[in-house]
């Protein structure tokens, strides 16, 4: 089965939630993005953001944190129905990533994936590149992140 058979174009699937605690925000930022507004609540209040908020890369990683168990669950669900799940490989990257709103300490983000399109790879028969839309919303339903990702699918 192909990914395009599993999800009709434009169908948005909810893949999970992540709560961003101040401790997690600071731990990630100390390692990867040590800027004052990701490290210190007082300094963050003086920044454009106005409060301690997660590194944008932390918000992205939260999407992946939800997608992996979601996809594992899908493979199990399909196997139970006797269907072989699409085989997905590494991603060659993403584009048009927008950090639309800060993810503040204490926010809970719900992540989504939408199947957008599939393109056959002419150089490798049976291989395809899928485009998926990845999104996250905060607990008030406001969008915080959006990007388009590519996923390789092989036979």
């Amino acid at each position, binding site marked *: 089965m192909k990914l395009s058979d599993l999800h009709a174009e434009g169908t948005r699937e909810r893949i999970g939630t992540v709560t961003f605690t101040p401790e997690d925000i600071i731990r990630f930022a100390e390692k990867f993005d*040590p800027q004052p507004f990701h490290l210190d609540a007082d300094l963050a209040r003086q920044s454009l*953001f106005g409060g301690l908020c997660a*590194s944008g890369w932390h918000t*992205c990683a939260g999407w992946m944190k939800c997608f992996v168990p979601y996809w594992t669950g899908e493979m199990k669900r399909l196997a139970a129905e006797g269907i072989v799940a699409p085989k997905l490989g*590494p991603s060659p990257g*993403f584009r*048009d990533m927008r*950090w639309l709103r800060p993810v503040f300490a204490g926010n809970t983000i719900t992540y989504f994936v939408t199947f957008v399109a599939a393109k056959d790879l002419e150089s490798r028969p049976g291989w395809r590149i899928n485009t998926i839309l990845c999104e996250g919303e905060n607990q008030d339903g406001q969008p915080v992140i959006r*990007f388009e990702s590519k996923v390789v699918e092989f036979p």
Partner: protein
Amino acid sequence: MLHFEDFPAGKRFDFKPVEVRADEVIAFASEFDPQPMHLSEDGGKASILGGLAASGWHTSAMMMRMLCDSYIRDAASEGSPGVDSMEWKKAVLAGDTLLGSCTVIDARVSRSRPEIGIVRLRAVVTNQRGETVAVCDYANMIRCQTAGEEA
């Protein structure tokens, strides 16, 4: 402190080399991307990546740290609205050393906030063999120099 005016097109900042450690690849993947090729050497060898490989999100995060250390922590940075494109071009394997640089593509003052400049940059991350592993085009908001503020 670097301000918007210090970021003309073509300005380049070099990254300090960073070693990709197996324990850090596994720790990141365990928390955010627990797929077999990111969790063990055997899992990596069995995949098309050929060895214990960093999650693309880990590579991105390591790039961010190199950006911070190369210029952001010296700059009046106010964060980023987003990334136009990120290409993960080659597997980043445990034991690799990452380096590279970022270069200003263009820079303009924000229309809605004249005290903020929007600088677009391209970061190129390479490995110890000189192979490009990631290319990222992104924007950085940087405060403009104001009268009376020390350069």
